[in-house]
């Protein structure tokens, strides 16, 4: 049966869906959805076809939205999505992750929730915030938020989360107990000799290599990293890249040695592509070497940024790659990054990009 690709876009003013057939040459846009709430992360569950959206509204607070008909209709819930009375209330949902029949949500202030009824009700995964280091957790530039959720596939108990500016934490028991896993990641903002602390790193994005649950990649405020042992030790893979700064990272759907990054020129330098020339950078040897992919991307006066959840791949062959800018443009490649086209523009600031491939 023919396949259809849905690019799920979260923006500061609602969710959008940009859709194509498997050729990925002609695209149509639908939206805005979710009552134009700010949607930090819109993600599809490939197993069920359900689309989930995490966000938070300035008036009505945080919730997770859900569509079971590919975006035609939406409902929302935040039942149980709350800390105890008296604690700082949850401001917004930063990320959603359907995995192994459970739906996870990362929130600000940083914490993790789970739903075992497809987003109808929520339970706090309290072990994370019970960690004795919590008094030392410091907010990053976008607040103290939990933005990356990586769950071992095939029913595994292991979970990794990324929190800014706390670092990576890992649970080997489904979320009951946690430990920081930041060894080898740098904090350039500490004095010499103190740049590799146990926590306090500004992780921007963590992803897992397909078929290799012990291999993780990380884009950090201070460098790009790979771990081959589930985050126990990280090693820098930034040699060959034009900067050590960026936000998103996206894995290939099948090749664990491939990774896509979008380096920006630096945190105090404007946070746009180096020299105003847009490029996605690809490795096919797990970070040993990199190539810039520029064909079809603007090569002058590109002063946009790309946020941490705003790049994704699809599951087709060859893999599609997508990214959205904070200036509301959405770019797509149907050939693993070799060539690009802009498939939407004039959207609100794009906060997240994910894909869902369904039978057409």
């Amino acid at each position, binding site marked *: 049966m023919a396949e259809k690709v849905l690019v799920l876009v979260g923006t500061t003013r609602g969710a959008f869906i940009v859709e194509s057939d498997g050729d990925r040459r002609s695209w149509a846009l639908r939206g805005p959805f979710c009552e134009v709430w700010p949607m930090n992360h819109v993600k599809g569950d490939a197993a069920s076809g359900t689309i989930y959206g995490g966000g938070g509204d300035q*008036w009505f607070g945080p919730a997770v939205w859900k569509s079971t008909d590919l975006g035609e209709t939406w409902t929302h819930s935040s039942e149980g999505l709350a800390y105890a009375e008296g604690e700082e209330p949850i401001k917004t949902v930063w990320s959603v992750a359907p995995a192994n029949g459970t739906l996870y949500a990362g929130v600000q202030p940083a914490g993790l929730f789970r739903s075992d009824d497809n987003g109808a009700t929520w339970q706090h995964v309290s072990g994370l915030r019970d960690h004795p280091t919590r008094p030392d957790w410091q907010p990053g530039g976008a607040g103290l938020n939990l933005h990356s959720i990586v769950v071992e596939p095939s029913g595994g108990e292991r979970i990794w989360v990324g929190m800014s500016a706390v670092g990576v934490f890992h649970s080997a028991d489904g979320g009951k107990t946690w430990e920081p896993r930041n060894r080898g990641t740098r904090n350039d903002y500490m004095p010499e000799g103190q740049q590799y602390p146990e926590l306090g790193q500004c992780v921007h994005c963590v992803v897992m290599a397909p078929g290799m649950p012990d291999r993780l990649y990380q884009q950090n405020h201070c460098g790009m990293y790979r771990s081959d042992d589930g985050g126990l030790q990280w090693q820098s893979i930034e040699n060959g890249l034009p900067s050590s700064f960026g936000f998103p990272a996206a894995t290939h759907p099948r090749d664990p040695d491939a990774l896509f990054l979008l380096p920006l020129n630096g945190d105090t330098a404007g946070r746009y592509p180096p020299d105003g020339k847009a490029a996605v950078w690809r490795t096919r040897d797990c970070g040993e070497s990199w190539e810039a992919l520029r064909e079809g991307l603007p090569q002058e006066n590109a002063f946009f940024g790309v946020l941490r959840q705003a790049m994704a791949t699809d599951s087709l062959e060859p893999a599609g790659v997508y990214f959205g800018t904070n200036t509301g443009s959405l770019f797509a490649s149907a050939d693993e990054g070799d060539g690009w086209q802009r498939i939407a523009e004039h959207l609100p600031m794009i906060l997240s990009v994910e894909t869902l491939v369904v039978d057409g």
Partner: protein
Amino acid sequence: MTDSAEGRAVEVELPPALVRLFPGAVPKVRLSATNVGEAIDALNQRWPGMRDRLVDSTPRIRRNIHVFVDGERAGLDTPLAPGAQIIIKTAMIG
């Protein structure tokens, strides 16, 4: 609404952006309550989840939601006289 409940009946006006979030919700509703918190609980009975949209986990009325009782800004504990008019407004922000 029972006779005694009718004696405590109040009228609540909801903002359009809230009504849009709940299929079947209407912009004006009569219900029975003796304070604002009870009125919001009654709204939640009719449209499950509405309390979360109006009240945070502190618990208090969300910062950018303004509740007026007979024209005066109110909180969750504000008492309601029989026949009181509650108007819920989204705050002007941005």
